[in-house]
């Protein structure tokens, strides 16, 4: 936590004009991430986590308007030229997406995609790039890597494709890797393997990583810090242990409680969260979670709570009636 963080997202907001009015996908988010650390961003669909990752990567749709600063390695990505951004990508900033079938080019061989990236960004020649590609494929756990170079994405299984996508992302030794739902489309046994792989590579390369997911289980064991998003805002942010052990946001508590767990007896009714997330084109004046929150009171509907730290400096939350510190993990 000493020195300037590698990534600093400052007051970032993303607005999308839609037919139904302005859609605030990301509502003034602040985040920091130090080199070599892992941040987990957790939220359900529509909470803005994907838009936030696109904002960091500067891959927003054309119609979107971005405000705020995205400081990466001392530069504001939102104000960089296209050329600077291009150089930063792959070299410093890499991304792994959810669906490897669509993130890999289906008409190019694995080898071509890997070698092209290496040649483009590291300026290696053909032979060196091929050798490096084989090393990378072996490092991500793909058996018989030499044969894979000539194969097409559709000839590989989902897990293999995701490994290839990770290999491409890691090929140029990035400083930050953003993994956007990297295992959601995969089976649970393969999921564990891929997450292990990411953790291993991160340690080896001292890389910073952001894991975006809807699964609290994925972030529990594999992140240093967790940020929970709801309706476009970060509603709680804390070191992982602190978040699970002393959660303050009712939403985090409710989310954790609503997940079926393996140690609960069958036919135990699940504490479901009633209602649905708010319509992003019609934002509420007060707290976005208030209509569904069992602790909500008058102030919650009139005013939006700010994300702030109270008792401990690194545990921030946005709530007027946080859960009492004495309570443990709900569930």
């Amino acid at each position, binding site marked *: 936590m000493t020195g300037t963080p590698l990534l600093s997202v400052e007051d970032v907001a993303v607005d999308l004009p839609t037919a139904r009015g302005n859609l605030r996908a990301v509502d003034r988010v602040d985040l920091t991430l130090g080199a070599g650390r892992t941040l987990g961003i957790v939220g*359900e669909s529509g909470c803005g986590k994907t838009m936030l990752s696109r904002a960091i990567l500067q891959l927003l749709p054309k119609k979107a308007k971005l405000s705020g600063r995205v400081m990466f390695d001392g530069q504001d990505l939102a104000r960089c030229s296209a050329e600077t951004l291009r150089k930063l990508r792959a070299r410093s900033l890499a991304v792994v997406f959810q669906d490897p079938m669509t993130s890999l080019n289906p008409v190019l061989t694995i080898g071509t995609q890997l070698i092209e990236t290496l040649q483009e960004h590291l300026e290696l020649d053909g032979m060196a790039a091929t050798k490096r590609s084989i090393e990378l494929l072996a490092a991500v756990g793909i058996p018989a890597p030499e044969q894979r170079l000539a194969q097409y994405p559709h000839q590989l299984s989902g897990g293999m494709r995701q490994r290839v996508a990770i290999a491409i992302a890691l090929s140029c030794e990035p400083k930050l890797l953003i993994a956007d739902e990297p295992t959601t489309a995969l089976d649970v046994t393969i999921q564990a393997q891929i997450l*292990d792989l990411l953790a291993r590579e991160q340690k080896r390369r001292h890389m910073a990583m952001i894991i975006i997911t809807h699964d*609290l289980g994925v972030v*529990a064991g*594999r992140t240093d810090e967790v940020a929970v998003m709801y309706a476009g805002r970060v509603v709680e942010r804390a070191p992982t242990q602190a978040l699970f052990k002393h959660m303050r946001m009712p939403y985090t508590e409710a*989310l954790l409680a609503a997940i079926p767990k393996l140690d609960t007896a069958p*036919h135990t009714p699940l504490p479901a*969260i009633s209602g649905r997330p708010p319509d992003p084109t019609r934002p509420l004046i007060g707290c976005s979670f208030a209509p569904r929150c069992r602790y909500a009171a008058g102030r919650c509907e009139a005013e939006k709570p700010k994300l702030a730290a109270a008792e401990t400096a690194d545990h921030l939350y946005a709530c007027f009636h946080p859960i009492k510190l004495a309570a443990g993990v709900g569930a």
Partner: protein
Amino acid sequence: MMQQATTAPLLKVENLVVEYVVGNKIVHAVSDVSLEIVRGETLGLVGESGCGKSTLGRAVLQLRPAVSGKVLFDGEDLTAMQGEALRKMRRRVQLIFQDPIASLNPRRKIGDIIAEPLVIAGIKDPKERLDRVSKVLNAVGLDPALVVGRLPHEFSGGQCQRICIARALVLNPEFIICDEPVSALDVSIRAQILNLLEEMKARFGLTLLFIAHDLAVVKAVSDRVAVMYLGRLCEVGPSEQLFAKPAHPYTALLIEAIPVPDPDVRPAESVAVGEPPSPIAPPSGCRFRTRCPRADQKCASEMPELRTVRPGQYAACHHPLTDQGA
């Protein structure tokens, strides 16, 4: 070999084999699966993608032709039925799908969609149909007045799934197959729908076959659980018992791989080796042997059958995990 039920089972699947042709290769989707479901029980069927659980669900409903084997519903053989008899049988057995929005015809109004089973069953009076549609919509927690005249794209995933459940319930079926009913839904909506299914089961006296890949979800709603791998059953047993003391190495592997939302539980270095083989060329003998840390020569040469490992629990393994009393 299976649990001796005191009452005849409502559904009995005997040695079901389902294969289909892709290109010029045969995919062994379901290979010799037998199971029983007693009236009023929920059997969870769990496995990863490609294990054949969805195919099994569809084959039970005769939506996919079986190569061999029988499906007995309330004593009658569904595989031998055709035409009108089969159509009548369909009213007693219903299906809920994974993608709730794709399960609804985008160009038809909700009211018509839910009334469709009634029309097919020959209920001619529109007032009676509307009445039953309204009743069932209320049961699933939707206001009929706001829902009946609209199109599916106006609703969220969770609401569409409620509509699908309403459609499945409108004919008062006895048996419902739920094929991954909550996988496509958000975490907070999943709990709502699972609670709803439990409540509907109690209210309408249903028997369920609950197919999913998420073990925790399956455990939450099932009395007994069956684990499938590459077209064959690995293990069957009561939920609590099976998850507390799994006998088959694959079950143990699945349990271990689940990410637990507790930071103190260090995710174990996964013992899963490699990827599942293709159902086009499954391994000889035990199909799990290529990824099993306990596999030996016997596993390659001899196909294990489901054998009792504990009262009520059966595993198809030559070296089940009870050897060490684990």
